């Protein structure tokens, strides 16, 4: 085996060892993540909490600001995704209706009508 072949094999072995260490043994840790990086079931529960809180305060402005933490996609899409997940995983009917009510109110919500808060 030529010297270059041995060099390449050693290089590859070293790279594999580095990848193993960096991805498995000591991967980058994200300890300060944003809600948009939450796992889908946690995200769905986050949206459910927003829907529950909305039923108390009926403040769509606050609900939309909370939904915005879950990503830059349209709030209605975020709620729709959550509703889909909830349907697939057979959430309780009360919870499903909360998603639906929030989704419906989002459809008719006009942000321009909201009174700006100081």
């Amino acid at each position: 085996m030529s010297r270059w072949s041995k060099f390449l094999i050693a290089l590859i072995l070293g790279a594999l060892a580095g990848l193993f260490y960096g991805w498995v043994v000591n991967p980058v840790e994200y300890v300060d993540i944003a809600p948009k990086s939450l796992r889908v079931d946690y995200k769905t529960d986050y949206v459910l909490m927003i829907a529950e809180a909305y039923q108390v305060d009926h403040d769509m402005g606050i609900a939309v600001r909370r939904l915005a933490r879950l990503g830059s996609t349209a709030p209605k899409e975020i709620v729709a995704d959550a509703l889909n997940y909830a349907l697939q995983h057979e959430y309780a009917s009360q919870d499903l209706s909360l998603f639906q009510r929030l989704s419906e109110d989002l459809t008719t919500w006009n942000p321009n009508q909201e009174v700006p808060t100081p």
Partner: protein
Amino acid sequence: MKQERRGSWYLLTALVLGAGMGLVYSWVVSPVKYVDAPPYALRADYKDDYRALVASAFIYSNDLERAQDRLAELKDDETYQTITLLAQRAQADGRPDQERRALNALSLALGRGVTPVAPGLITTSEATSLPTNSLFTSTPLLIEPTANPTITLETTVMPLSMIRTQRPPGTTGSTPTPGAAFVVRETRLVCNTNQPQPLIQVELLDAAGQPVPSVELVVTWEGGEDHFFTGLQPELGLGYADFTMQPDVVYSIRPAAGGQSVGALTAAECTSEDNSRYWGSWYLTFVQP
């Protein structure tokens, strides 16, 4: 001989180079992406938002177990204390009024392990149909205001530890019963050099002398009003609450659901033995007769 040694070194060099390249790739170019992160990995401010959201949702569902399950995902060492601290600094953090009240209600519920129905928070038809079989009833206290109390000025020097009863969270306190009006039993000025700020300290007791938590108190002054609850500092007593006064402002205080009111409370000074002056605190005891 010379050639063999060279061979060993270049292999080692290749291994190190390869490992370095692997690390650069795995840590910088394509690090592990946490797209399925749990709530405990949230940044501190997002964790606070999460807690406030749990509290707001709790006001709707009245489901303490669910709220506790959600909070458990944050893996806090002391969930109750974390929520209580967040409730206490909610105003300074500029949180909406609803969130502040929700955090207060959740803090109380966690402290007692029961689900209160926070008055004034439930506004929807769905919410008003929630069950009210908890220790806290949604029925307001039926209290008729009575005449203004006589304020007796009594300067008492006592250590703070004597004033503040040590009670662990979760210990059973009394629940206000409908129709039992709180009346003022005692109003006294407490001089304590360890308490630099002038406070209105309130203690609510039931007819049996047991502290009564979760009672909303209203403090008013010219051009302002604030609300606070007993029991938010359970280490100081489940019936205890306090409010920091500003000098030269005249306050009056009463239980929010009615009852006797104490007025003309202003920050008063005390004098120590070396003639230095410091703020005293008003200590009010309300009781159910």
